[in-house]
């Protein structure tokens, strides 16, 4: 898989104070190649259930984009919740444009809570076909 980050990751771990709700953290292009599909099949025992990438590639692609763009992260983050909205899945080999943005942040019961949104589209600026919102306890 040859991902192409469009914006370079920050040199130091992202801190809670750096997040600004409504602001984009960056974008990248995701690529799914035969090696990735081989790894998937070796792990889960199937390559595809239809004409597109498996539905279960949605969590995988979203977390891959989030971990690449919202990086580096401080040790001790806890991913507590996730919401997905899937309109359709891309086909293997299709270009996938991923963007990551901060939706909200708050401190509740002493915990720093950050909500990040990852959107996948067929090209930059196009309507998303898969969206995921992650709720993360940010360590510092």
């Amino acid at each position, binding site marked *: 898989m040859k*991902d192409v980050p469009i914006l370079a990751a920050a040199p130091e771990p992202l801190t809670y104070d750096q997040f600004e709700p409504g602001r984009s953290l960056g974008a990248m292009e995701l690529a799914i190649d035969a090696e*990735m599909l081989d*790894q*998937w099949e*070796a*792990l*889960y025992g*199937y390559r595809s*259930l*239809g004409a*597109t990438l*498996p*539905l*279960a590639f*949605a*969590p*995988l692609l979203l*977390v*891959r984009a989030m*971990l*690449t763009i919202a990086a580096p992260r401080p040790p001790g983050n806890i*991913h*507590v*919740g*996730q*919401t*997905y*909205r*899937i*309109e*359709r*899945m891309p086909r293997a080999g299709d270009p996938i444009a991923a963007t990551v943005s901060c939706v909200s942040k708050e401190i509740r019961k002493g915990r720093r809570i950050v909500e990040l949104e990852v959107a996948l589209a067929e090209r930059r600026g196009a309507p998303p076909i898969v969206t995921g919102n992650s709720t993360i306890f940010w360590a510092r």
Partner: protein
Amino acid sequence: MRALETVRLAIDQDKLLRYAALSNDFNPLHVDPVFAATTPMGGVIAHGTLSLNLLFEAIERTVGMPVGGSHVVDVRFKRPARIGDVMEAGGVEQADGSFVVWVRNQHGEPVIEGVACFAEGGTDA
């Protein structure tokens, strides 16, 4: 009431390493037993989405891809999965047409829980 087709996966070290490569998540908590033993987790835990993907497989095998709208899945990670655990994903339809969904370990304990609404045949979820 319909139920999702059950999907199972046994967690082992090889699967954690494969998933680390797939997800680009090489957090030592998932791949380094020596480091993980020093953390409050007391040992290696599986990536949350490694188990979550089983639920999405169950959804695709049961209701297929979205038609005329979006599948919406809202989940919470309840407890970690560990090497040697066997994950089982499933779900059951509720009276309002939504599904209660889960991934459980071999003890029946919830690892992931949530709700899902599916776009089937032109009905927006």
